[in-house]
């Protein structure tokens, strides 16, 4: 089976700090891959490098058969990869609908004439987009679906996470990158959010997910496979139970005995 995402010898340093140190990593289509490791092990840096926010200092990235090394964020998104952020990056003064539509950019007609003059055609696209966004939000929280034109600023953290995930999902990406979706939420809220993500995936089996997470219960429950990073290198790989039992991994998390 061909890989959906491949990284070969991926490196990134910040001054003298090696955040990614020759990382090799393969993601197969339709899996849910957990990316774990202690703080500062390079998980978020990996996301930022493959989504074009940082430039890699060395190595290669291939996504969906194309070379995407140091591709721009825009090119990565257009190729079918979308993400959430560790610290929620919603546009707070904008409505729920607006925030989700930001994620739908590639499907919306961006022509000046279409937007300013052909208002009838625009309205048609607007209504279709509204229906799609509403249907997606309903999976996560039916109550939010009735509040699509309220600003995000007034919503609690869990709803903001939901909207961020909807924003990433609305364009039907091939690969979804979730950067610590449980940050700032309670245990129960996290469990609920994960169920919703699994529900979306059950409807769309072509969706591959990489999830960075510190909550091991989440990782154990939803991932097929885990990769453990430490100091920018892969130290273990396999099903959660196997990597959790790995002495090297335990050492990385807890320190040497």
């Amino acid at each position, binding site marked *: 089976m061909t890989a959906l995402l491949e990284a070969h010898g991926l490196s990134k340093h910040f001054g003298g700090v090696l955040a990614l140190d020759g990382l090799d990593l393969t993601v197969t289509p339709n899996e849910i891959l957990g990316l774990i490791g202690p703080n500062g092990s390079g998980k978020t840096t990996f996301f930022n490098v493959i*989504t*074009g*926010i940082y430039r890699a200092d060395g190595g290669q990235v291939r996504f969906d058969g194309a070379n995407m090394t140091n591709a*721009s*964020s*825009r090119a*990565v*998104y*257009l190729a079918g990869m*979308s*993400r959430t*952020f560790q610290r929620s*990056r*919603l*546009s*707070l*003064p*904008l*409505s729920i609908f*607006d925030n989700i*539509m*930001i*994620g739908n*950019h*590639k499907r*919306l*007609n*961006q022509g*000046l004439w279409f*937007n*300013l003059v052909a*208002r009838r055609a*625009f*309205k048609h696209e*607007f209504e279709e987009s*509204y229906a799609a966004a*509403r249907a997606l939000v309903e999976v996560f929280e*039916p*109550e939010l*679906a*009735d509040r*699509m*034109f*309220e*600003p995000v600023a007034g919503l609690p953290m869990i709803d903001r996470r939901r909207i961020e995930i909807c*924003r990433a999902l609305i*364009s039907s990406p091939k690969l979804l990158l979730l950067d610590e979706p449980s940050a700032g939420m309670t245990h129960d809220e996290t469990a609920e959010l994960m169920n919703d993500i699994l529900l979306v995936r059950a409807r769309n089996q072509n969706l591959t997910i990489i999830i960075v997470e510190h909550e091991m219960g989440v990782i154990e429950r939803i991932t097929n496979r885990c990769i453990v990073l430490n100091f920018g290198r892969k130290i273990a790989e396999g099903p959660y139970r196997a990597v959790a039992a790995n002495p090297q991994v335990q050492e990385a998390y807890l320190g040497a005995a």
Partner: protein
Amino acid sequence: MSASRTIAKKARVSIWPGLIALAVATVYLIALLAVEKQALIIALLVAGIAVVAAAAWFGLLDGVSTCFVEHEDALGACAIIAALIVAAYFYDNHFVLLLIITVLLYSVATLGLNVQFGYAGVLNFAGASFFGIGAYTSAVLNTYTSVPHLLVLPIGGLLAALAGSLLLLPVLRTRGHYAAVVTIAFALLLKTFLEVNDVLGGPQGMQVKGMTILGWSFNDNIKFAGLSLSFYMNYFVVSLTLLVGAFVVVRRLERSWIGLNLDALRLDETAANCFGLDVVRWKITAFLIGNFLIGIAGALFGMVGGFVAPNNYTFADSLILVSILLLGGIGNPWGLLVATVIVVVVPEKLQTIQEYRFLLYALMVIAVLLFRPEGLLPRPVRRYFPGWRP
């Protein structure tokens, strides 16, 4: 089920609060423009502030603003009628009509600034310069060529946009305050350029021939049914048309995917990039559309005033345009109209304050930033179609 219930709960909002507010504002504006005695004007202003403050205190203004959100098309038509009534009332008064035209054209210019700053987040401190480029365009074209005057207006807009594109590279390579400094530098450069160019009249400036369309000279008083209408009525009609057009364009821009793009890149450029937004393309689009509007307004204003000079388009004038934006509510076109009326009309009527007008502007801006940081009429959440229900 729950969806249908919510819709049922939101019964249609009555149009009356908006209509009443509009009518009161029209009568008030006529009174303010008609009164000459300084004491009376001050009394009127104090009364106006008191009424608005009281209405805000009792929550009446929220009703008015939701009304405007729901019935924008109808109330917009009523606002046009209101403007016509005000102009008709002062049909033979040159001074007041010129003041009204100034309000209309400054509104067009601030709508342009609003696209740049309010939506795309590019602060332009050279608004008056681009306005001046429009005015100089009509001065030069009306003097040296026989380009139809109605065509001179869009050419003024295009030239302002073209001059603005000189600024694009430095503006796109800098952020926030630094980009603003680049625009200030442009304002100073342009003023010097105009002063040393004898073709453009140097520091003394140039005369601008008045508008003529198909032999109809705009600078002659109109004889109509035994009445003598001020020649400014001609310009009033063109200015109002221009403002309505600019308003519709800016409104549609905001209520489209393009408006959403601009908001997204202003609020978080990194996130916008991650969802495929071409940040450079949209910043350029917003900057050029904004300058185009400012340039058209300037071209017409040049013909209205009949005279252009470098000193009419200084950094101080740009600051006035920006203060209108802050006062009205960044991103809200209705707020801009209200703020332009206040900023243009009040100092002109309050002749007693004379050159202290800049002090007044400064105080207004400080008061707004302290007590109402989002402006008099804060921008509401985007509704793509007024009154639209899921």
